[in-house]
């Protein structure tokens, strides 16, 4: 571990890597400050910039964008009651009332400090825990790995939308798309319909860009792209010592809770922030002012909760190769472009890269703290950026980013098709995140299921005679049945 840590330090503390962290955070904050620009979309449309870099540099840029965008979602949430990203929705509850009371600067200052603490605490937790989890994961076999992939899909489907059936259908569609190309065991072409380009499979990142970039843009035009005219001056951004003391416990508690929630596949910053906000509200009896009317503890709980979920999401991503949320799914895609397979073997094969991710992510939050406090006046102005110039530019980034993947036109058509499909599915209430997660989990599930069946000469006994696999599959079944039962009970 120490050797990996030292190697990671040497990789991160290079001028270009450090510059990419700062640049990534700036880009992330700018994009995240604009309402409707989610962290997932920002990372998806900008991932192509990393293709020409080495893996560490690419990760530094993407982590900077990820952290910056997630943090910046709080700025429009506080100022105009519109979360920049879904993760900042809970920040509105107390952030906007503070803004109405003329204390927007204080709210942004608290959000910045809480985001830093949340991110930093979760990175520390993840750095200590991940190698241990990866060690355990190294010893599990194909049946257990198949069960984990299936569990990942069911839990993602069950928490990512109002309808579990729609979530599962989205996930299965992603798994189906991933079967296009050469069969991983026998190398036979599958669903290529005579197109040789399809033998290499459908490019995951092209689908991602279509689903989260193009589909979001088309939806924005459907709703009508408006303009925002915000004229607000900020003052008192740096929190006082008394304010820091009052949010200390709630920030630390929410940071730990957010890290744990973030490590559950599919449970991203939005779920983490609502849970930590509600818990903070429950624990703070007779709070003055009340939660929901401008209590800084509410802002701190929501922001530390959602920012701590980011590093938490790296746990299943790096240790099992199973994405913790849709942004980490893109990170997996970016690593795969560089020929690096995330999973338990990553800690043995690329210890320097793994620790550079942890160290880099910690530095991302340091940069967020500095830029957040010093540049708040600037970020506030970004909210006014006119959508009429922004969205056509986003579409160009979608197209050029997709072309940059492999330099072929097919990927661009895949992106357009995914965008149109994503728009239609979204209109009909299907969550999009399970599609991309299904595309990642599908090949893992297939490879391990088929390997298991080959080991057992085609007998499914190998799955249900493994106690670990059985427990995980039961958890998968529970994650599907429990929400259905709850919905039924509520309707009764």
């Amino acid at each position, binding site marked *: 571990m120490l050797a990996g840590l030292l190697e990671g330090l040497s990789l991160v503390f290079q001028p270009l890597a450090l510059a990419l962290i700062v640049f990534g955070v700036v880009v992330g904050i700018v994009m995240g400050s604009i309402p409707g620009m989610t962290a997932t979309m920002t990372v998806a449309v900008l991932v192509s910039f990393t293709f020409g870099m080495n893996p560490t540099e690419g990760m530094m840029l993407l982590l900077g964008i990820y952290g910056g965008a997630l943090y910046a979602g709080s700025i429009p949430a506080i100022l105009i009651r519109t979360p920049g990203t879904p993760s900042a929705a809970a920040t509105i509850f107390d952030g906007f009332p503070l803004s109405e009371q003329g204390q927007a600067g204080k709210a942004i200052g608290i959000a910045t400090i809480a985001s830093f603490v949340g991110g930093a605490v979760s990175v520390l937790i993840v750095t200590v825990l991940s190698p241990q989890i990866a060690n355990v994961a190294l010893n599990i076999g194909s049946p257990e790995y198949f069960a984990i992939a299936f569990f990942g899909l069911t839990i993602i489907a069950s928490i990512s939308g109002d309808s579990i059936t729609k979530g599962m259908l989205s996930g299965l569609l992603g798994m189906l798309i991933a079967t296009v190309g050469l069969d991983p065991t026998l190398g*036979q072409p599958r*669903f290529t319909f005579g197109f040789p380009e399809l033998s290499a499979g459908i490019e995951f990142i092209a689908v991602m860009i279509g689903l989260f970039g193009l589909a979001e843009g088309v939806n924005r035009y459907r709703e009508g792209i408006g303009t925002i005219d915000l004229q607000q001056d900020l003052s008192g951004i740096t929190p006082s010592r008394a304010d820091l003391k009052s949010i200390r416990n709630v920030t630390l508690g929410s940071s730990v809770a957010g890290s744990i929630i973030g490590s559950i596949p599919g449970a991203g910053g939005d779920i983490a922030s609502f849970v930590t906000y509600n818990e903070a509200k429950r624990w703070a009896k007779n709070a003055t002012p009340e939660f929901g009317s401008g209590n800084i503890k509410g802002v701190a709980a929501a922001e530390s909760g959602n920012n701590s979920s980011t590093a938490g999401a790296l746990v299943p991503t790096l240790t099992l190769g199973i994405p913790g949320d849709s942004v980490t799914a893109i990170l997996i895609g970016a690593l795969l472009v560089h020929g690096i397979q995330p999973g338990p073997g990553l800690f043995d094969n690329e210890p320097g890269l793994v620790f550079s991710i942890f160290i880099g992510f910690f530095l991302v939050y340091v940069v967020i703290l500095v830029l957040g406090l010093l540049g708040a006046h600037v970020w506030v102005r970004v909210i006014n950026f006119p959508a009429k110039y922004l969205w*056509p530019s986003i*579409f160009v*980034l979608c197209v050029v980013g997709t072309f940059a993947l492999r330099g072929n036109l097919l990927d661009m058509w895949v992106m357009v098709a995914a965008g149109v499909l994503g728009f239609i599915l979204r209109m009909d209430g299907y969550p999009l995140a399970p599609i991309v997660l299904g595309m990642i989990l599908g090949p893992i599930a*297939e490879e391990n299921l088929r390997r298991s069946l080959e080991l057992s000469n085609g007998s499914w006994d190998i799955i249900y005679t493994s106690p670990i696999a059985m427990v995980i599959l039961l958890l998968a079944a529970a994650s599907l049945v429990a929400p259905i039962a709850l919905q039924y009970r509520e309707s009764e």
Partner: protein
Amino acid sequence: MGLHVPHTDKLGSILWLLLAVGIFVVSADLPTGTGETGAAFYPRVIAVLIALFACMQLGRSFYDEGYQVRDVSRQQTQRVIAVVALVTIYVLSLPWFGFVTGTVLFLIVGMLYSGARSPIRIGVAALGLTLVLYYVFAVFLRIPLPESPFVPVEAALPGLIHVGLIPGVIG
């Protein structure tokens, strides 16, 4: 006239069921490989699961009729079609016009359609973004972008590519 789509869950479930059937039909041509785990095995497992969840959704749609109608106004339909058409034409134009010309044209039309009216701002934004992306991808990251066989703007671009910093990357 807008779009009025009733019974969306029923319609959706039927489409999912057709997809499941389609997977079985298309995978019939796949070599079965050795044992039960040939190339067709896994897609068929997925097809069965799709059919299962589609049936669940279809069943539910009969007793839960709420939120199963989609109404999209004429204006919204026009905006969606226009944006998808613009992007499609942009992708189609790239092999012919090349990245620089195609992107500048797309940005000008896209910004005008989105409500921008200042020719100077549109021109600066369109040309500025195109050149920044061109230099970042083609020169700095060394990722070639589409070039036009008819309008070779890329070759005429001044700067880094012609001072021999990145020989052989473009053109």
